[in-house]
């Protein structure tokens, strides 16, 4: 009897794993296809899609696609642009959004509720719906003029950074987190004569590790994967991020092996980043849901 129950248990366990593995295959196969295909010449790549060979690094395997792709487009420049724009936006966003949220949560001042409700209300405006008026806005905005040369907003780094520094979601996440911090800490510091800036800098921020990680990861994903806005505002190669760089690979005859190599190059850093920090990634998404 005991062995029978044991067998039954083992069978059910095996079944559970079988289901989990089957689903895992569904989620991972396009990525394996991407990496494997990036190593194959075009003819073989297109032939292999009709069999399981599409997922196996077999046949004529080489890094030629990577070499050709890097000759076709300035990949290093695009990567640099993406990392620069994403990095600066994330840092500035963390600072200005947490500072605003600090003010909304801990300071009492006239107009606070109104400002906060406006910010929360913007959460339901999809970015795509304001992208076009925003394009017109930035095309009219002055930036700097020096020595008779006028610098505008189109074709620049700042046009990809400044509009995305403050966003409703990041401010909202910080406000939610700050609300749960003990108020006594702040009152005690006020009694001892600390300024609001000191309280923000030396008490609140050191306590905010988890929410900073959450906000940083969500912002990082959103910025690195930006598509519509950079297409509209970067006509010049010099400022283009990685996803806009894709256009270089879709000309008269698309070389699919090179496309796969490029996709692999721009995706692997994010995947690596995710695999290293996967606990924080998942915790950060989860924390947006805890409050409801």
């Amino acid at each position, binding site marked *: 009897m005991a062995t029978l129950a044991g067998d039954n248990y083992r069978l059910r366990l095996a079944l559970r794993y079988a289901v*989990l593995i089957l*689903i*895992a295959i*569904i*989620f*991972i196969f*396009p990525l394996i296809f991407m990496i494997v295909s990036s190593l194959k010449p075009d003819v073989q790549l*297109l*032939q292999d*899609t*009709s069999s399981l060979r599409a997922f196996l690094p077999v046949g004529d395997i080489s890094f030629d696609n990577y070499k050709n792709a890097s000759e076709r487009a300035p990949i290093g420049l695009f990567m640099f642009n993406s990392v620069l724009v994403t990095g600066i936006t994330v840092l500035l966003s963390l600072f*200005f959004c947490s*500072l*605003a*949220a*600090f*003010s*909304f949560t801990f*300071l*009492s*001042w006239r107009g606070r509720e109104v*400002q906060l409700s406006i910010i929360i209300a*913007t959460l*339901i*405006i*999809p970015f*795509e*719906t304001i*992208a*076009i*008026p*925003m394009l*017109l*806005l930035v*095309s009219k905005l002055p930036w700097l003029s020096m020595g008779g040369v006028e610098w505008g907003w189109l074709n620049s780094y700042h046009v990809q950074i*400044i*509009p*995305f*520094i*403050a966003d*409703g979601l990041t*401010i909202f996440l910080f406000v939610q987190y700050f609300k749960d911090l003990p108020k006594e800490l702040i009152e005690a510091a006020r009694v001892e004569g600390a300024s*609001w800036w000191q309280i*923000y800098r030396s008490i609140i921020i050191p306590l905010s590790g988890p929410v900073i990680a959450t906000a940083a990861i969500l912002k990082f994903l959103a910025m690195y*994967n930006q*598509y*519509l806005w950079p297409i509209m505002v970067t006509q010049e190669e010099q400022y283009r991020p990685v*996803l806009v760089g894709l256009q270089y690979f879709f000309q008269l005859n698309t070389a699919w092996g090179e496309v796969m190599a490029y996709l692999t190059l721009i995706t692997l850093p*994010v995947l690596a*980043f995710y*695999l290293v920090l*996967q606990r924080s990634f*998942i915790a950060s*998404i*989860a*924390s*947006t*849901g*805890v409050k*409801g």
Partner: protein
Amino acid sequence: MANQGSRLTRQNLHGWLFALPGFGLMVMFVVIPFIFAIVFSLTNQRLISPNPTEFIGVENYSNLLGLGGLVIEPIKDDEGRWVLDSKGEYKYPRTRKFTRNNPDHPDIQGMKEWFSWQWDHKKVVVLASDPVFMKALVNTLTFVAVVAPIQSLIALCLALLINQRLRGINIFRTIYFMPVVVSIVVVSLLWRFIYDGQNGLLNSVLASLTFNHFEPVDWLGNPDTALGSIMVMSIWQAVGFHMVIWLSGLQTISPTLYEAAKIEGASSWQTFRYVTWPGLRNTAILVGIVITMQAFALFAQIDVMTNGGPLDSTQTIVFQAVERGYGKQDISGGSTLSVVLFVIVLSISLLQRFLTREKN
């Protein structure tokens, strides 16, 4: 008293100062563009135009939303008999005869045929001022209506699966979430290989499963399957995100409740129905709202995979807004679409809030 007053003023000053950069940027880059969208939608603004911009009231909206109907009698010959074509079907006068400069039908002036069907011997034609917009509207609503519930449900099933205590479960969780971190543009390009009409991976799999009895389908090139294919891919890409939100909801449910259910001898379905589901109420509301809003913003998949085709079967509101506002530099037309989308999203989120309100 004086001291109190000055302290409050100083708090006012600091409050303003700290909030100003964040709030100012949001006003500049969210609120003002949004107000611009509303204003432009009432004008004939274009990106570059030799003519000055004029206020034209709600004309953009009537050009977009105008609907009309028409019942057309078959053509009769001189003796009053219906004329049949070579296939034995009735012949109808062209719709254009009624909608172009026809003094008897001023209300449908300039409209085009959206769709039609036969009713007895008559032909019923539904007309729209902008049939492409109407198709985009219907496609977007279909996409939301299909993707939102299915994606929520699959995400919940995955969360329940991942919430088991098994060795190595973290590896599976990591894999299921992986598509979320990959750009939707990259994902859409990869899935073009899956959906390809000739050597596509999907066709190959279906052919080998049915021992070559399956006729290859050009999934993205066929108006009947294109939108469905994009739905499947979109669910695949985003479901991990919502799985994690469900998972966090599941983990807030106290283990003692499960123990109690076990002692009472509840079946797994009963445990889910009376312990798990009630504990997920708030999570369900959140998942519902987030998925709905993401689904309404459907754009990149269309741009990379189909460009709205074939035969407008994958047009969406956002894709049309971008195509008109940016592609055709018709700022007012694109803005009008944006405002219409915003009104729809707003009404749906108010409706969701009303339906899920706390009942006292």
